[in-house]
């Protein structure tokens, strides 16, 4: 009998385990409770003539209610402790807008963005406008090669601001004019030049020049590229417009972080991404940029 038991018991356990292996071994666990918080975000450029802030309330992933925009918030901007602007109306588009009719410019001093709401603790973040970008554009007609064809070459030189970690967002477009100093036509192209410069960190579409960073190393950043257009062959006059925004460290961190989030998508093998925040409750962002535009 003992010998029989020795075989019967393991056999029973084996059958039991086979059923578990096939059905899966699974246990439900408690869902962590979530305490809703304010998520505030505002990005301001020196060329902006108005603000568009987004204020929402966080919603637990496992909650069935929808994530919602938050009404009744009061938004304030301070400069060195002095109130600059205060606004509290949410537009039909879900943004808290403030229009002051002219470009705000790069305001000196410490800018504090503060959001209060009757149901939440007040949150805030502090930023400074970065110094305006100092850059040169060198244009060489037909000097570059673009997929076997002659192309205009642009060399951008972003000058170093010693001991400041500089980050730039670069936008370029090509506009057609009828004559020198003549009126702009409605025809233009947004340029997405490519660069192989490994000394700069590039955001956005991979390989397409959209944002660069010193990455903590004081240096002039020099970038050359073919525009894909050859001024000599065109019937119209071409005007290259370059708009470069110096980004605050936090705004650059937001761009990078959002890019990582975008890349990860729903890929289960991707590392989780925590969207950058500089707000006092670690949710949301406040960023400032200063833009300079040049034509060639």
């Amino acid at each position, binding site marked *: 009998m003992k010998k029989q038991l020795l075989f019967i018991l393991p056999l029973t*356990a084996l059958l039991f385990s086979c059923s578990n292996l096939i059905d899966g071994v*699974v246990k439900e*666990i408690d869902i962590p409770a979530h305490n809703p918080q304010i998520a505030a975000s505002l990005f301001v450029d020196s060329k902006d003539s108005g603000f568009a802030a987004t204020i929402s309330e966080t919603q637990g992933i496992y909650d069935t209610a929808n994530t919602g*925009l938050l009404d009744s918030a009061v938004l304030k901007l301070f400069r060195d402790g002095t109130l600059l602007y205060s606004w509290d109306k949410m537009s039909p588009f879900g943004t808290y807008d403030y229009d002051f009719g002219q470009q705000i410019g790069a305001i000196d001093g410490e800018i504090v963005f503060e959001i209060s709401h009757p149901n939440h603790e007040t949150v805030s973040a502090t930023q400074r406008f970065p110094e305006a970008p100092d850059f040169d554009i060198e244009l060489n007609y037909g000097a570059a090669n673009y997929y076997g064809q002659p192309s205009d070459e642009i060399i951008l030189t972003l000058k170093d601001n010693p001991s400041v970690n500089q980050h730039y967002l670069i936008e370029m477009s090509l506009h057609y004019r009828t004559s020198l100093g003549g009126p702009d036509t409605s025809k233009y192209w947004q340029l997405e030049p490519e660069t192989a410069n490994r000394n700069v960190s590039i955001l*956005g579409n991979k390989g397409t020049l959209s944002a660069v960073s010193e990455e903590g190393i004081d240096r002039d950043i020099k970038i050359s590229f073919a525009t894909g257009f050859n001024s000599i062959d065109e019937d119209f006059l071409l005007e290259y417009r370059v708009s470069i925004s110096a980004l605050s460290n936090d705004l650059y961190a937001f761009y990078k972080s959002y890019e990582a989030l975008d890349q*990860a998508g729903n890929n289960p*093998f991707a590392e989780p991404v925590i969207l950058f*925040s500089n707000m006092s409750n670690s949710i949301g962002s406040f*960023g400032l940029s200063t833009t300079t535009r040049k034509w060639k």
Partner: protein
Amino acid sequence: MKNLLLALFCVSGTLSFAQTKTISGYVSDSKTGEALIGVNLWSPELKLGTATNVYGFYSFTLPEGKHVLRLTYLGYANQDFEVNLSQNISSNFEMIASENMLNEVDVVASEGSRIQEQVQMSKIEVPIKQLKSLPAIFGEVDIMKTLQLLPGVQSGGEGTSGLYVRGGSPDQNLILLDGVPLYNVNHLFGFFSVFNADAISNVSLTKGGFPARYGGRLSSVLEINMKEGNLREFHGDATASIIASKLTLEGPLIKDKASFMVSGRRTYLDLLAKPFLANINSQDPDFSTSPTYYFYDMNAKVNYKVGKNDRLYLSHFQGKDDFGVKSEESSIQNTNKIDFGLDWQNSITAARWNHQWSPKLFSNAIATRSLYNFNTRIINESSYQPNFPDTTGQQSENFAALYRSGIEDYGGRLDFDYAHSPLHYVRFGAGYTNHTFSPGATNLEFVSSGFNLDTLIGGADVYSNELFAYAEDEWTVNDKFKINGGLHFTTLFVEGTTYASLQPRFGMNYSLPGNIAFKASYADMMQFVNLLTNEGIGLPTDLWVPSTANIKPQKSRQYAAGLAKNLKQLELSIEGYYKEMDNLVSFKEGANFLFSLDDESWEDKVTQGSGESYGLEFFAQKKAGKTNGWIGYTLSWNFRQFDEINGGEKFFYTYDRRHDFSAVLSHDFTENVAFSGAWVYGTGRAITLPEFSFITALPNGLGWFQGQQAFVDRPSDKNAYRMSAYHRLDLSLSFHKKLSNYDRWWIFSTYNTYNHLNPFFLDASTDDQGNPVLREYGLFPIIPSIAYRIKF
């Protein structure tokens, strides 16, 4: 420093000897002739001792004159003998194993083998006999699973073979099989390790206090030696279990001069499944599927005593896992074939030459090759007949994605042991390794009507050259105080960049009243290889990558201190440690490696940061006797900090485990019936969960406009949550019978005996009513197994 050393001499009353002579030779097993590693040779009178090295060689320098010496080795009878050292003597010894003795009283740990006498701390040896008596899973005793039961060593969770030593990651363990680094130790996705216990003679794990001879990894050195093979008789050992069988053969090639050992193991799940699959496939003529999985490994070793002073060894290991699923679906118009597969393989080869230059000087030269490859394939072939009125005929589309990665090393090293005097045992040596890394390349092929694509994405090979040299001295300052000090120099040449590091190593043992040893150590380490891993998946898709011009080498500093004492047959130790790590490598947020199709290199996807771990380990071990085993407990904290992860905030490492407890017991009820059990408990793994969502504004630029908004899911802070605690009981009962020509065993065992769900991963989804639920999935319920073993 000079003053400090001088003071040590003065305060402690230095031992000194005028005239010395040396006795040297080899110690081997009396029955098999195999070398014995770590045998203690001890002078009770002088309270001095030495031990055989990994080749069984010893050299003991003593004052001229008569001495009584004692040989002690766990599981073997002590031997006392008298020598008259009027000149240098060469003498080989043979020891008798306890299983060949009637009186077990002789088999006790003697003074020479006491941990309280050893300078080395943070080192654990598990006797193979004890290891083989532990519960077997599917009839297989697994070395890595056993090591996971030791204090300071954690498993990565259910079904993984990786070791997480004192807060380190698995790539920080230098796993040496016969002195050759092995890069992947997993079979069956980590459920088994590649080490076949029947082919192994010795296992030791060093977690800290690394002597200068070790280098190249931050967290541990696991040394595993293959059996050399019986020099006197032919023997075999075979085991059949539910999923695999193995066979080991060993014997003399030339009696007492040359021997061989060969051992092989293969699973047969694929063979067993064939009839069932045939039955399933016969039920639907339009669909067939054929999943396959097998692994095999093979160990082989030959050794040859060329003369009195020279020995040659050749060892080889080869292992492979192959998993695949082929399916075919067909109808009148369409046919669709899918072939998905993963395979990975290890291969190492080592050729060694031992030479005794003089009674005091011994050398070992070794040439090695280590190869690890991982391949994945997805092949899809489809053909279809277009509908009328399209008369173009049969159309076809073929798609193939082949992913491969790997690492190949060629190396050599030369080590010397120099027994300078009774008080100084010096080791020095140097080595070189050439690495070729293939860090992941995807080959895409797409062929369709009128369109062909064949492209290779990423994965350019990286070559590097690594050099090291070391020197260390184990110095007996006096009968209470011993020191092991040394320097390890290492340098790497990669992509035009040179990294160099001079690493000080220090260990000491001071005997306190009550024969309690106070031990302390410091080790500075650097490593030039990194394993990129998606935490916790445990797939062999993990990628070995080198330090490069952009990726700096990992570094660590470890401080440890503790007390050790032998209490009769029990070894007791308590150790505290603190470890700092720099330049650790991790994926950036959002990055992944699996079938990455963009043009970024792997370097763009990783970031470097630091780590910190500290803890307290308690260990009580009884290695021999009818009842043996151990109890281990670790209390530890383990953190990581990366500027680009978790907002730059420090976070718990995923394998931070506050409490880790294990109890292991083996007991021989009679000569023929043996029982063993192991219970393990560990704090749940730290994990990141999706936590909440919100709406954010997007700044101008990159195609966004002012006022644009986006929904964002935000995970919890990195590793802010815990899985449920892990605990498991394994039991085993074996019945032995001695028959006329062979011995046989029936082995019954259960894994996870009380069927506890140990979480492997978490999943957030919805239940039948659409309510959100969070589920923990386990891998293994109770798994009973039976195995039959014969030894002849």
